């Protein structure tokens, strides 16, 4: 029951957001600020995680493929495909749900409980649009960019791990990666990145916006934002895979 209520409120929140902006210039400026915060701010963690996930995948794939009948280059195929399809977009976005999502929810939640959101409304500003829209648009631009970087670093991490642990040479890795490479895989990677970024920013904004109470509730809203974003990312991960593959 509560869930249906929340979904309805989420849909209304989304609809309210899209009314005529009071001052387009201010919205655009805010969007750029958010792009810097989301994009540049998340770059280090995204880089570290994708590199190591790629490296680990190489080592573990090699461990599983003990048979001498299979060419070493298959490891390159497996690592690059699974990075593009699943590891880079999904794992990165789960991490971003924690980092970006909790930040958005606590920022908007704090503004809500300290009446800053009311102050915006009384001034005649559409607070939902003013607060959430720049974050959502910024996420739609920046998170796919982060995923592209994660794709490169993940595959790079796999290649380097293969080289330095003596599993396969970079040449073998690249042959394998190229062997089955399809642009469609990259396309799916970006579709996932786009959908996940919308889920993270919109769900977190929503949770922040409907906070009421005090500091404790802001913390709860922030936790709920992360949990719900993660669950929805996994649900849509499955749906996208089912529909597009």
């Amino acid at each position, binding site marked *: 029951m509560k869930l249906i209520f929340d979904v309805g409120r989420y849909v209304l929140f989304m609809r309210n957001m899209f*009314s005529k902006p*009071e*001052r387009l210039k201010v919205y655009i400026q805010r969007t750029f600020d958010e792009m810097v915060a989301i994009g540049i701010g998340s770059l280090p963690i995204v880089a570290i995680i994708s590199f190591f996930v790629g490296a680990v995948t190489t080592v573990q794939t090699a461990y599983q493929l003990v048979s001498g009948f299979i060419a070493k280059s298959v490891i390159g195929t497996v690592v690059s495909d699974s990075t593009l399809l699943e590891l880079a977009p999904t794992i990165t976005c789960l991490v971003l749900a924690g980092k970006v999502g909790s930040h958005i929810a606590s920022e908007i939640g704090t503004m809500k409980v*300290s*009446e*800053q959101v*009311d102050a915006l*409304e009384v001034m005649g500003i559409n607070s939902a649009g003013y607060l959430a829209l720049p974050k959502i648009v910024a996420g739609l631009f920046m998170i796919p960019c982060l995923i592209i970087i994660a794709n490169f670093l993940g595959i790079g991490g796999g290649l380097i791990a293969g080289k330095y642990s003596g599993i396969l040479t970079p040449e073998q890795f690249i042959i394998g990666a190229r062997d089955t490479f399809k642009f469609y895989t990259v396309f799916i990677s970006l579709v996932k990145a786009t959908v996940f970024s919308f889920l993270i920013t919109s769900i977190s904004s929503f949770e922040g916006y409907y906070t009421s109470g005090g500091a404790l509730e802001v913390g709860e809203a922030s936790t709920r934002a992360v949990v719900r974003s993660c669950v929805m990312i996994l649900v849509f991960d499955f749906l996208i895979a089912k529909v597009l593959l």
Partner: protein
Amino acid sequence: MIELVNVNKSFNGKQVLFDINAIFHKGKTNLVIGASGGGKSVMLKCMVGLFKPDSGQILYDNRDFVNLSYEEVRGIRREIGMLFQGTALFDSLSVEDNIGFPLKMFSKMSAEERLDRVNFCLKRVNLENVNKKFPSELSGGMKKRVGIARAIALPINYLFCDEPNSGLDPLTARVIDNLLHDITHEFNITTIINSHDMKTVYDIGENIVFMHQGRVFWEGPKEEIRAGRSDKPELDRFIHASFIE
């Protein structure tokens, strides 16, 4: 002038405002007094549209605020300034940007014109050299003053203040009271102040509305309260409780 006609408001079946009728005059400091929990804040929030009354009319110079379209409501809101109980300053913006915010959103002023206006408003509330400070660096009284400066940044017709001197020392409380009184007369606006401070009533009250348990019990000029002519035991008790015998 703002007029409330038979305004009712309840939350989840619990009625908070009962058939409120009241008139707030232009160019006067209108005070809403009464014990905590009496419904003063709820009434104020109904008047600025943060809550929607269940029934009744709220007339801004004969424009019925409750039944206007969202666009028209936003139009009236541009004539409204509000000082929130916790000031609701935007903590991500400097003092200068807080006061300049409504100007940036709703006026066509250039950056220099905005700065002039911001400095004029700061001067009006007797603050100087705080332009670049952030709300977290200000004292309670300074925050209230910045809140007032933000409220009067645009040429407003209506000013709402929720407990403007709660949490302040007695001296600062008087300063804020006098500031609100002077601004009201200087700009000839309709000012409505929620308070439970009898000192405020005697100092600056010009039209008093006494609320008790969600009802308006008494309405009139302060001279009648002073003369003990209220003929309402609830009001007399409230007044007596304010004095240390």
